[in-house]
């Protein structure tokens, strides 16, 4: 094995790219769960976002349009879930699983004509001055815009959840929906908006896979990223910065193990392949051993306004 093949700078730079899809999906799901809804359909919304984003990107030649369309598609699919769960009071776990299966099927239907095509390339931003900083420049400041968009979304989510009244109401609804209702808050409306946000984020995450990371359409290409996002939300104790940490950790180990495989490390490929999952979960479990990290009080419970 030749470890000198692995360039730490490149590794760190590609970590952010590898982590962005999961980060986007996870931050959206964190908001949904903070509002008290468990949407297990993340994978389905991601893959739908991936195919819609790719199709629109190819047809318009603009990746930006692709991302917008992916967010809309993810949100639209999540509204299906929202109506079933919030108005028809269906079981959230079963409905979420159904959404994933539906999304997988829908995406392969839409994606058939696009197989083998190449996505329009997305220009990287060389942020002036900052990208010239030695070491840090190439790692942090020479990425495509979506990497920065995802970081902005995480920051905004943190700010809104902890510092604004809208965030407080959302947390209140997720913590005790009966009490929120008794105080006169619109539980269903708040949740519907949270679900739409989660769907849009998952759609963006999916489109990042098909438009930037791979970049082409392959059936089932999100390959479980949605499930990882769900796990990261829980192990991150529903906190935005920990979601970021978890996603980057997962992305980092993924890139590292790919590099190790390429370098011919004397570790079985299977062990390398599962290492991102194991390490991410272990680290987040150790972090969450201390302090307050309870699930939102009304998570997964059906809200029925009794009066």
């Amino acid at each position: 094995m030749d470890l000198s093949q692995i360039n730490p700078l490149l590794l760190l730079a590609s970590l952010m790219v590898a982590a962005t899809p999961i980060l986007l999906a996870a931050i959206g799901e964190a908001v949904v769960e903070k509002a008290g809804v468990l949407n297990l359909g993340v994978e389905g919304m991601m893959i739908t976002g991936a195919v819609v984003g790719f199709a629109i990107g190819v047809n318009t030649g603009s990746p930006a349009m692709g991302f917008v369309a992916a967010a809309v598609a993810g949100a639209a699919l999540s509204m299906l879930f929202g109506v079933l769960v919030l108005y028809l009071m269906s079981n959230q776990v079963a409905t979420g699983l159904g959404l994933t299966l539906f999304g997988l099927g829908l995406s392969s239907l839409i994606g058939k004509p696009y197989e083998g095509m190449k996505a329009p390339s997305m220009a990287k931003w060389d942020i002036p001055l900052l990208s010239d900083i030695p070491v840090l420049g190439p790692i942090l400041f020479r990425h495509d815009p979506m990497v920065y968009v995802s970081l902005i979304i995480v920051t905004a989510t943190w700010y809104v959840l902890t510092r604004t009244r809208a965030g407080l109401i959302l947390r209140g609804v997720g913590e005790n929906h009966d009490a929120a209702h008794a105080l006169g808050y619109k539980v269903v409306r708040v949740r519907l908006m949270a679900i739409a946000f989660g769907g849009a984020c998952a759609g963006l995450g999916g489109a990042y896979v098909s438009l930037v990371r791979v970049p082409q359409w392959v059936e089932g290409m999100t390959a479980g990223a949605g499930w990882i996002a769900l796990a990261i939300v829980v192990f991150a104790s529903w906190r935005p910065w920990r979601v970021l940490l978890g996603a980057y950790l997962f992305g980092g180990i993924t890139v590292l193990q790919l590099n190790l495989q390429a370098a011919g490390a004397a570790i079985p490929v299977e062990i390398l392949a599962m290492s991102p999952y194991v390490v991410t979960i272990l680290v987040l479990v150790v972090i969450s051993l201390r302090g307050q990290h309870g699930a939102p009080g009304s998570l997964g419970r059906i809200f029925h306004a009794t009066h």
Partner: protein
Amino acid sequence: MTGDSRQADALLTLEGMTKAYPGVVANDQVSFSILPGEVHALLGENGAGKSTLVKMIYGLVKPDAGQMTLRGESFTPVNPAAARGSGVTMVFQHFSLFDALSVAENISLGMDNPPDRRALSTRIRDVSQAYGLPLDPDRIVGELSAGESQRVEIIRCLLQDPKLLIMDEPTSVLTPQEVDILFETLRKLTAEGTAILYISHKLEEIRSLCEHATVLRLGKVVDTCDPREKSARELAEMMVGDTLHVPFREAATPGPVALSMSGVSMKSPNEFGTNLRNVTLEVRKGEILGVGGVAGNGQDELLAVLSGESRAQSGTIALAGEDIGSLHPNARRARGLLTAPEERLGHSAAPEMSLTENALLTGAVRENLVERGFLRWRRTERFARKVIEEFDVRTPGPDNTAGSLSGGNLQKFVIGREVLQRPEVLVVNQPTWGVDASAAADIRQSLLDLAHHGAAVVVISQDLDELMEIADRFTALNEGRLAEPVPTQGLDVETIGLMMGGVEKETAA
């Protein structure tokens, strides 16, 4: 004061308020008025329609008919925010608090235009000090005691300058000291002109606090009175519409010792609980032992160590002479030691399960409801029906969930379920908590009957009147220690106070 002149000065007037739900008219032509600065009691049994009425005033329920007038203007709140905007606020029976959020965040959620964080924290500190309810705005609500949680709700209301404060069973979870503090606060408020609409089952409280009472029965106003001029019994009879059945107790000579604890010490499994210290007691067959004391002095732990949820060292607890200290709950049940804990929903009953299923949960062993690992549903349902019938539990049938029953009805079910299993020893914690007068009388009577038929009964309660009424001997828990039991007959208030305070009177007993 005549009705007309009340109406003329009224802060809030209700006229012909009506609300029907499928199958039941919750409120039928309810009319009355509330004066500024008055504590107005709303009396009625469980299910008389008190909660529906106050929800209409608070904008949570839309009336089918009737009108409300607030300070001379028509008052039709479409939602709680509109009600709050008009100066009507409410403290709920089951607190509407968010456990994972801080005190300040909880209060902010209950306000329509909260000031920014720092200003709000300062105001919370100021107002809570001014009304004698100290509160730290940064604490997480889930860590507060029941009394402190209620302060959060009250402060939330006070910050909005209410004209009318609605309180639904505010004292049911408070210790006597906390009740005193609350009443002090309420009197300050009324002195400032705030009116209070007060719902409680505790008639003595209503007599000491309220100036006017409206009595509801089956959704209708049946009477009004000045509770200060009535006895608790008269008030109860107005609610029931019948003469109140007073538990009857036959003199009996206690038999041999049924249950004994000797020097039981146990660390509380709950972080905020009280450790039991060297608890020694003896209960004889045919006897009721009353255990008083302020909440949080080891009541839950005492019940847990007797039920088997917490194990004691072997050799410290004996049932009819047999050591049961290390036995698990079902083994204790099989030997005839049954228990009914305080918390109805989630401890003594599973809220989402049907009454039949709940009957199975504790009755499986003694009622033979399981056969070779299979459940005997028909037999279980018969048992559940029997509980419902004999204890007059008002529910459409045993298929309804425990959570759908009102507190008093569920309490009757929970007690009945144990009593009908013919226990040798029954331990109950707060058997009539939040239960209306006539249901409470029924529950007490069933405990007396049980003792009369030879069972030993331990009643843990914070209601001293209840213990004086049914217990043969009285003791009290204080910081996990149990006082030496004394006969209740001729027991004076001073001795009780000293026992609850942990001081043994030299000449007692």
